[in-house]
């Protein structure tokens, strides 16, 4: 049963592997190009296991932003994992802490997406052991391939010609995360405010424009949502 679940997880994750290889190569290479040593690049890629945030943070850092802005940007790009944890947590209530720590270490977009779909769908009501097998089935192969790709990327490093423009990949990958989350007017307005402000404020020192634009856009979205909620509440009152 657990063996079958592990293999099912492994199989479900296979279609994501070409992307994992490309992203790993890029994460390793960008890290070296940003001035990290090969060892630092390999260490960061393999322990952080979050390519998008790594590339974004290091591009900021090598573009002149102080390290604290790079760390903040990394935290912001990875904030979605808080929501992943929130939605996965109830499905693994019985799991001991040491397993939750391991799950957290390997929690990436596709592992979360596949596992949540499985636990809430076909795998509803499975025992913890079987869920664990599925989760780590999706996670372990991906991690092994990620580590290999990052090491290869760090070795290739500056050998990848800039004319390939691979540094556009993180932005395109983030678009794939942003678009499904723009489901209503407040979110759309927040995204538009963010585009305009981030572009206008791009020349501010230390790349703080990113944080200001994102923060203001968030407040605008929240405010618009509040207005809609207030209106709905008034509408339902007799």
């Amino acid at each position: 049963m657990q063996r079958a679940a592990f293999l099912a997880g492994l199989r479900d994750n296979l279609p994501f592997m070409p992307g994992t290889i490309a992203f790993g190569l890029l994460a390793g290479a960008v890290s070296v190009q940003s001035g990290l040593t090969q060892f630092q690049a390999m260490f960061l890629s393999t322990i952080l296991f979050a390519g998008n945030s790594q590339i974004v943070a290091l591009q900021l850092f090598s573009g002149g932003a102080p390290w604290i802005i790079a760390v903040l940007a990394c935290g912001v790009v990875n904030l979605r994992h808080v929501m992943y944890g929130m939605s996965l947590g109830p499905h693994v209530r019985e799991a001991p802490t040491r397993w939750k720590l391991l799950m957290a270490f390997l929690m990436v977009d596709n592992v979360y997406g596949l596992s949540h779909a499985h636990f809430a769908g076909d795998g509803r009501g499975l025992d913890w052991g079987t869920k664990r097998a599925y989760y780590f089935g999706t996670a372990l192969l991906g991690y092994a391939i990620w580590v290999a790709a990052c090491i290869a990327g760090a070795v290739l490093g500056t050998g990848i010609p800039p004319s390939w423009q691979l540094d556009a990949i993180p932005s395109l990958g983030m678009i794939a995360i942003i678009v499904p989350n723009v489901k209503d007017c407040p979110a759309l307005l927040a995204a538009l405010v963010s585009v305009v402000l981030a572009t206008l404020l791009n020349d501010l020192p230390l790349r703080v424009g990113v944080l200001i634009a994102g923060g203001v856009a968030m407040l605008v979205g929240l405010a618009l949502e509040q207005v809609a909620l207030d209106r709905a509440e008034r509408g339902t009152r007799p």
Partner: protein
Amino acid sequence: MIVWVMIALMIAVTFAERYVMLELANRVTLPMWLLRSLRFVPAALLTAIAVPNLIIRGGSVDLSPLNARLLAGIVAAFVAWRTRNVIYTIGAGMLTIWVVTLLQASQS
């Protein structure tokens, strides 16, 4: 040295974000304002990080149709909307960049 501090903090922050609600989801309920704010993280904050990298070329805003990355971003947004697939989105975007760049190179 400062690079190691940055590396350690990036790892610590990211791990905390991945772990905290996995452990606490069954014990605490987050306040409403925090839940509502989290919903806007992709639209507001990720947009602020991703979009300047596509609009700004060589230090200035480039909204012309010759900006391969801007076109790629528009194509990627469309593909993301239709397919909700990260790989297709990145693939379509990169293909756009390469094709537009090649066309421009062949014309000049």
